[in-house]
């Protein structure tokens, strides 16, 4: 277990040494199914994840949770508190929970999360649940990593469904209206349903985004939620979408890795006091020096991030 935890740390630090371990695990890698949960702060994502983990444990699945929270871009510090809601699984060896701060590296969480998911798969965890609070661009990153994205809403929406953050309706494969024990949840579900029937938002035209009502604290609607996730999984696999998307994501990830390596090499090449730093100062614009760095990148040095 410590080996896995350490490897995830290396992945987070973008430490290239982790490659050796990954190479060794290659044959064991079974990419797990990834369910992403996102939504505004406090909508009950962690409580829902906790309830879903309980259901999956009853069905004897080994489950991993990656709970992310943005770090402060200024200090790099973070308070990661999602575990608080998942304490009942604390001593269960078949549940692995990891908190991650999105440390402001470009590509953000997604590169680290993808590698962490592969590691978790190699250690036998399937599915992996990814929780991210929906601020900034983070929900887009979740959707880019998850196989099924669940967007969590609540009855206390303030100005109603119309005011839901732009872009969030499009990334949902499933909507959850959580806190169904509170007043107003039916109104939210109804408004959402009529909005979606007027103008479907799903990126996948053949998929109708279901709306599931849950009360995470009372553990109600959790079986229905899992059933919705399962039917989305079957839909993707039957339509060949899963395969096509996996191929596309591998391409995207490769491009991101290239960008990461190149960025690192460029920073090294531009170190203070170097020839290129001097030329950059004279030029005043980046393009010629960038070309020069790209030429250097084609050079013989082995590429390591």
């Amino acid at each position, binding site marked *: 277990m410590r080996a896995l*935890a350490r490897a*995830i740390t290396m992945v987070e630090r973008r430490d290239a040494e982790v490659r050796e371990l990954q190479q060794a695990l290659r044959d064991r890698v079974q990419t797990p199914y990834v369910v992403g949960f996102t939504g505004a702060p406090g909508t009950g994502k962690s409580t829902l994840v906790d309830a879903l983990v309980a259901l999956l444990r009853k069905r004897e699945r080994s489950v991993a949770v990656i709970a992310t929270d943005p770090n402060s871009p200024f200090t790099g510090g*973070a308070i990661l508190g999602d575990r608080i809601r998942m304490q009942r699984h604390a001593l269960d060896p078949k549940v692995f929970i*990891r908190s991650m701060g999105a440390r402001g590296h470009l590509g953000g969480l997604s590169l680290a999360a993808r590698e962490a998911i592969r590691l978790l798969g190699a250690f036998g965890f399937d599915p992996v649940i990814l929780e991210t609070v929906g601020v900034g661009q983070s929900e887009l990153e979740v959707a880019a990593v998850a196989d099924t994205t669940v967007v969590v809403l609540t009855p206390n929406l303030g100005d109603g469904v119309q005011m839901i953050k732009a872009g969030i309706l499009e990334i949902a494969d499933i909507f959850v209206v959580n806190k169904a024990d509170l007043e107003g949840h039916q109104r939210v579900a109804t408004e959402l349903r009529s909005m979606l029937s007027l103008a479907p938002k799903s990126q996948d035209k053949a998929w109708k985004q279901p709306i599931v009502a849950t009360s995470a604290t009372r553990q109600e609607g959790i079986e229905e939620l899992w059933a919705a996730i399962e039917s989305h999984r079957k839909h993707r696999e039957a339509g060949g979408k899963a395969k096509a998307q996996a191929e596309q994501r591998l391409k995207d990830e490769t491009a991101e890795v290239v960008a990461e390596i190149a960025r690192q090499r460029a920073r090294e090449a531009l170190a203070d006091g170097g020839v290129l730093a001097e030329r950059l100062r004279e030029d005043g614009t980046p393009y010629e020096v960038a070309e020069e760095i790209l030429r250097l990148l084609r050079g013989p040095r082995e590429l390591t991030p």
Partner: protein
Amino acid sequence: MSPAKAPAKPVRILLAKVGLDGHDRGVKVVARALRDAGYEVIYTGLRQTPEMVVDAALQEDAQVIGLSLHSGAHMTLFPAVVSELKKKNATDIIVFGGGIIPDDDVEELKKQGVAELFTPGTPLQDIVEWLRKRFPSS
């Protein structure tokens, strides 16, 4: 503002309340101070047993465990965390504690492997500086 000045390898600290007392205002204040000092704080909440604390620290790959306790059971619970770490071959993880702890107990707890103890009224900056000494690159 570039995020580049944030450390690439932030130190991860697991904070937990052990014992039965049910308020966590103090530990949350510490959590915020540590976050603002650039640490990644994983807060696991109230009423944690030593086994829960150590398991969580291992999964989270925390380098430090911070324990808070006001119920007076520090002489049993703090050493229990240390011995749980021994059991799990994880004595590289540093343990510090906070609470109302008499001086004699402080000495005894340090003998038993708790790295440092902070009593009420300790300026938060002292905790940060202690960590900086322990992890100079942070």
